[in-house]
């Protein structure tokens, strides 16, 4: 399984996702600088977390117009799976590859802590490592993770089972308190129509080692790598 991790100026969780992928595959993914002339062929493209271009305009807005994103979109159109985590999710929405937008958290504060997620659809390459309805504990670390879309888009996401994860309580139940960033319908991650593009705010790559406080993210990468092999 060959993965490419695209690095923008200001990306900062590329090490974390590379470590998680290499833990599962046994080898480091290829890192591609956003201005490198050619992106190698791969089975997976990852847009890591961080603050691409400082996020000084809107989160992800500058990176979405970086030339490398034309290539990412072309590959995605041809079926190469694309995973955007945190800032990567923001870039995918700004690039129009996923619907909706990520507004500032309801608290207007950056929030770094463990949250619970419910897996909403396990019939995808990204989530096949989980049981339906499984509750995970993984960290979040973002200021702008409040997922927002118009009601028609939200209904369409629900109807087509394009919601990947929702914020929930430890028992899988939903409440406003658990939906800490105020996301519409507690959405933490969504797929595109073909379910080959996933954007999510939480960081499964930071939950792959029992020493670091949890392993619930490991099945994410095991399932994904297994599906792409």
């Amino acid at each position, binding site marked *: 399984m060959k993965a490419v991790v695209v690095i923008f100026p200001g990306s*900062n969780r590329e090490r974390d996702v590379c470590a998680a992928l290499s833990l599962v595959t046994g080898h480091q993914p290829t890192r591609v600088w956003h201005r490198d002339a050619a992106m190698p062929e791969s089975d997976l493209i990852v847009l890591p977390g961080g603050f691409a271009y400082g996020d000084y305009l809107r989160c992800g807005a500058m990176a979405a117009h970086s030339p490398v994103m034309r290539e990412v979109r072309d590959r995605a159109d041809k079926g190469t799976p694309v995973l955007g985590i945190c800032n990567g999710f923001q870039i995918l929405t700004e690039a129009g590859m996923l619907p909706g937008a990520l507004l500032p958290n309801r608290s207007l504060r950056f929030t770094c802590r463990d949250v619970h997620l419910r897996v909403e659809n396990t019939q995808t390459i990204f989530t096949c490592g989980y049981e339906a309805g499984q509750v995970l504990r993984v960290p979040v670390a973002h200021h702008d993770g409040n997922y927002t879309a118009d009601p028609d888009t939200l209904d369409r996401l629900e109807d087509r089972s394009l919601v990947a994860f929702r914020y929930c309580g430890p028992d899988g139940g939903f409440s406003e308190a658990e939906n800490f960033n105020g996301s519409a319908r507690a959405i933490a991650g969504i797929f595109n129509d073909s379910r080959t593009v996933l954007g999510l705010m939480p960081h499964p790559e930071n939950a792959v080692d029992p020493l670091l406080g949890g392993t619930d993210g490991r099945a994410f990468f095991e399932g994904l790598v297994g599906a792409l092999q």
Partner: protein
Amino acid sequence: MRGRSNVTPALAAEHGLTEAEFERAVAILGRAPNLTELGIFAAMWSEHCSYKSSKVWLKTLPTTGPRVICGPGENAGVIDIGDGDAVVFKIESHNHPSFIEPYQGAATGVGGILRDVFTMGARPIAILDSLHFGSPDHLRTRHLVAGVVSGIGGYGNCVGVPTVGGECEFHPSYDGNILVNAMCVGIARADRIFYSAAAGPGNPVIYVGAKTGRDGIHGATMASAEFSSDAEQKRPTVQVGDPFTEKLLIEACLELMEGEAIVAIQDMGAAGLTSSAVEMAGKGGLGIELDLDRVPLRETAMSAYEIMLSESQERMLVILRPGGEAEARRIFTKWELDFAVVGRVTETGRLVLRRNGEVAADIPVEPLVTAAPVYQRPWRRRDPEPEIDPASLSDRDPFECLQHLLASPALASKRWIWEQYDHLVMGNTVKRPGGDAAVVRVSAGGKALALATDCTPRYCRADPVRGGAQAVAESWRNLTAVGAEPLALTDNMNFGNPERPEIMGEFVGAIEGIRQACLALDYPVVSGNVSLYNETNGSAILPTPVIGGVGLVANVRNAIDLALKRDGDALILIGETRGHFGCSLYLREIEGSESGPPPPVDLTAERRNGDFVRDMIRAEHVAACHDVSDGGLLVAIAEMAMTGGRGVILEAPPLDLPRTAYFFGEDQARYIVETADPGSIFEAARAGGVSAHAIGAVGGVALTLSGAGAISVNALRAASEAWLPDYMAQV
């Protein structure tokens, strides 16, 4: 040099130079300085850059040891952690700017300390912040807390270095002068450390990073004077941070450091281009010529004076080997950073600046550095406080007092703060904020670092010697409590106006206490920072010598925390309880008194008890451990219970001490350990002459004490967690 100088002693005084200092500058030059030169002398001889009041005392601190690669004097200290790895770390204050403009002040404090660490060739892996704010009731405090915390987060989160720990205290003495001390820790190869001494006459001097603007001019001078009521008007002296550029600068510098192009490198911190150029030339015993027309500028028509004194952020000065320019240019262009050859190293021993084709300054470097004034300021010790007899205290319900203490600003949970910091990025945070020390993994082989910042200012106020020693001892204890071997520390000496003998006495005393403890604990000082003049209208802060400690955990799997793990385990108190009550939090929060002497610090007992606890952790006899400090024994037990979500059935207090003194006294050198094997611990304690007492058993969902009833752990946690978010939500 063109024209006659119109610099007068009065203008020099406005720059913070005394008459004698001005005369010395004139003698060095053999003429009156021009305005640019005056600015350079004033910056280099400011308290902030010259340490003129503190130098003679700082020299008395122990700074060497088998692991020390580089002690104080460089951008940061360096210690050896084996396998060819080195830890590079330092703490630095950004107090004055953070009070004036909390977001940018705190953000640029983080930026500055990051640069000190990666300048030496290290990748930053952790940030910690020691914060001291005024009374929660002061009108300004909420605004300052919000601004400082979001500034630290805004910068650290964006550069992608985890903020893993620190501390936050409130006291009215900080109403007019808050403290924002940021510590950065990095990892380098021990044989790839970069220093700042210029070498090789003719070598090119390059400027990299962000452009120079008019921000922060006179920052160093501003930080060397006390505030009056006009602090607001000093806002233009505060710099503006750009963490995105810093992130690029980290990556570009570390990439350039992989090659052989660099001779010396120095970040532009306080006093900007002035101090970086002067320090590089001074350390190398050489001269530097700079053509200021080549400095990348953000604004037009900047004078030599403004360029030299700007404190614009995210800039570095680098001396390259001959022919190294092409490689450096390629790397800095890739990272879209400014790059310019601005001068060269010379043999003249002079700092020569050109602007618009003319010489704008010409100063001999050696006397500028070595003839900087050094003061033996007069100092005086305050009279010691009388002891407090624990029997004089009224007996109160211990659980009510406990709940009150846990909801006090000093002890209440600081989760509201650290959840705004990305403490997980880089994927190595083994022990997160909220414990005795953070633990960060540094290698796949299983090595990790334990990191903490500590100080108990109220102890330092009452007895600076004891307070200084206690800050070091508590730091050493906090690292020990997670299973680490304490290696070395960095100190941030925050005090009032040193020209007042009683303030200078606090400084001298704290240094003496720190010295004693460092020697007794083999815990050298490898870097540090001094921040004086933290006072407003003659009212000074509590003396606050913050200790940033670094310890080594050889096998990260042996690192432990304070969360109670298993019902049925025994809790054992290591160390002696005498019920010392002076300066205790109980006295302050419950009785409303800040009187009495701080607890004595028995450094022999500290060493013995700490070594014992660390041995027990390594032998895997300990499931959880916590040092006993602020608030005393019952608070420590409650913190273990709240973190682990388990209750404790407490043993009855000993009969020879009043109950209140036993539960809330703040005797030092104590730890609580949770163990499934009390027999082994008692046996080893007897053999080692260590005091060990059973104090309770883990179980249930409450703290329970015969004769005093019970209090639920959830209720305690709710009280502790609620205070700060509730406070910040008030408008």
